[in-house]
């Protein structure tokens, strides 16, 4: 059973993530299909924002554009009040690594790696092999601590295929946290889990939010879950509705 709780949204801080008049269209057979039609959004440090909407409303597309995995057709994405969408591909990748952590509905773990190795990958993206040698022990310690924090201290060396859905999602959360991002973008993180496991995962996310002061943008269909967040943004046909 999901516990309903409304936290107070942090105010007075600069937004860690902002979207200004964000538009995104796809073209199919020469015809424009608008998916996002002028989204304005601000996410502050420690804030947990729920993105609600029906399928096709543009929630995942918005998340991809906010996470710099996709470019907007027009409009602006700002991290810490700086525009980022026009940076080079490499610079955007680096910023994505430093600023954003992703949690996906289908976990997206690499099957050849153990749970611990999947988590460690979160800190291997922008370090040279020699540089990593110097921080390896420390990073490994941090990763193991995170695994213990998400309740998987005993499952470090299991491969994804040997873990349950909930365990895999917790590995994905630990991986997202290891790089110490400013904001976590979670795309239906409980969409593939049974209700009791989904509760456990969500409680974990809320705990991380309150303990670490991380900002969250949480895509969900679940009204109850959304109600627990600081703020709910509803999307319909690519626009924010109130």
């Amino acid at each position, binding site marked *: 059973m999901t516990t309903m709780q409304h936290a107070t949204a942090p105010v007075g801080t600069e937004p860690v993530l902002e979207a200004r008049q964000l538009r995104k269209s796809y073209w199919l057979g020469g015809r424009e299909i608008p998916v996002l039609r002028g989204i304005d959004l601000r996410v502050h440090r420690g804030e947990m924002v729920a993105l609600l909407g029906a399928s096709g409303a543009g929630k995942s597309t918005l998340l*991809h554009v906010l*996470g710099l*995995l*996709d470019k907007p057709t027009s409009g602006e994405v700002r991290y810490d009040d700086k525009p980022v969408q026009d940076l080079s*591909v*490499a610079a955007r*990748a*680096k910023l*994505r*690594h*430093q600023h954003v952590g*992703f949690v*996906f509905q289908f976990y*997206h*773990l*690499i099957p*050849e*790696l153990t749970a611990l*190795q999947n988590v460690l*990958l*979160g800190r*291997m*993206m*922008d*370090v*040279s*092999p*020699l*540089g*990593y040698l110097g921080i390896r022990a420390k990073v490994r310690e941090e990763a193991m601590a995170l695994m213990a924090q998400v309740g998987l201290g005993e499952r470090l060396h299991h491969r994804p295929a040997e873990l349950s859905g909930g365990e895999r999602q917790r590995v994905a959360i630990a*991986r997202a946290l290891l*790089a110490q991002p400013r904001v976590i973008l979670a795309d239906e993180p409980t969409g593939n889990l049974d209700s009791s496991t989904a509760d456990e995962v969500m409680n974990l996310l809320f705990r991380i939010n309150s303990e670490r002061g991380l900002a969250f943008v949480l895509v969900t269909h679940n009204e109850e879950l959304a109600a627990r967040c600081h703020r709910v943004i509803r999307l319909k046909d690519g626009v924010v509705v109130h």
Partner: protein
Amino acid sequence: MPAVFAWFLALRYLVTRWVNLLGIVGVALAVWALIVVIGIFSGFIGAIREDVRRATPDLLVTDLPHQQSWSALQQLLRDDAVAAAAPRLRHVGVFYLTSGMSPVVRSQNLDFNNVENSFVMLVGIDPALEPQVTGLTGWLDRVPDVMRAPDPDQPLAVPAEAEYRGRKRAGLPAPRQVEDYRAIWPGLLLGKSRANRQLSLGLQPGDPMDVVSAAFGAKGGDTVTALQKRFVFAGAFDTGHDLHDEVMALVPIESLRTMLGHDAEDDGSVDIVTDVAIRLREGADGAAVAARLQQQLQAGLGTTERPVSVLTWEQQNQVFLDAVEHERALMKLVLFAVMLVSAFLIYATLHMMVSQKVKDLGILSALGGSPQAVGSVFVLCGLVVGVTGASLGTGIGILSAIWLNPVNDWMHANLGFELFPRQLYDLPVIPCQLEAEWITQVAIGAVLLSLLVAWLPARKAARMPPVEALGYE
């Protein structure tokens, strides 16, 4: 330098997919073949060059004017770099054994392989001067005892006793007592393989041989004069260069001059030569001396029908040496095809891997991997496959070359056959010449080719849009 995740994932992908072994084995096999086969080829070529060198004087003066006198020529060959010079006289001929061998015996030895004929290039040499310019003494030592010239100091003279026995075997008139016989025929030396075949037909040192030839225009106009002279088989020589030895017969230059109508005792005879063999002093630059001598000779001889040639040992065998080198180049090309097949294997396995790992590409992008960094995972896979394969191939190749002869000996002793039948190639050991430069080129080439073919799947991976990759099913 690719980020640590690229190295880490490349190694994980490789060790969890046995199919990548195909690429490693392919590269190793190609590198091994390129090292060992070309090593053996180079060894053979080295041996061939040695044989050719042994058969050839440092310089050869040829294309001399018709009826050129040796005495007149000697003045023109004075040069500080020339250590010794010896005259040679070449003329084609046909030889027959003057033996009582019956037609039945001859028919039993029919030459079904068409390698036997009686044509021969008679090369008249000065037995005193020739050893000073070529390894004639060594050529005589290299043959088995049964066909060795009886007197190494006078290889073109057969002792009276041997000639007497030969005369008797041929059914020619002979005195009753060998003591009453005096040797009268000049000696003739055949190349080893040719002498060997003649020995199998019953030829022995001391047997008479008739040489027939013709002189064209010797009496003016279009006349052809038949020439015949009797020689005696004196033994065999072996320079090691079989193609050279096969066609040559060494005879005393004076005897050949006599056959051609220039007997030294006749009035107006000329000590004719067609070629001059020259030995150079240590350290002399053959090409430079050849050019200098050519100018000197041409100036001394005046205008000649065609320019006098002075050839270095390599120029004398240019066509043969070029053909051998060309074969080595062709062999490299053929073996490079093996390398291409292994490169294709790497390409195919990596391409398949990229197709299987599309979702991983999206994950890596989401974690902050740039397209270039994501693609580098597959370039590193190619690099690891290439380096591992090249290292294995190089190591095994070098070991194979070192153990080639012991293994061949063992196979011969225990299994009854050889990888390289030495009798066929007439070599005491299988020559294998490893060249550090070639090994380095092959190993680096294999790695570069692996990188090149890995770059194509890597580019495909790098170009995959992250959102599309994450949604890939």
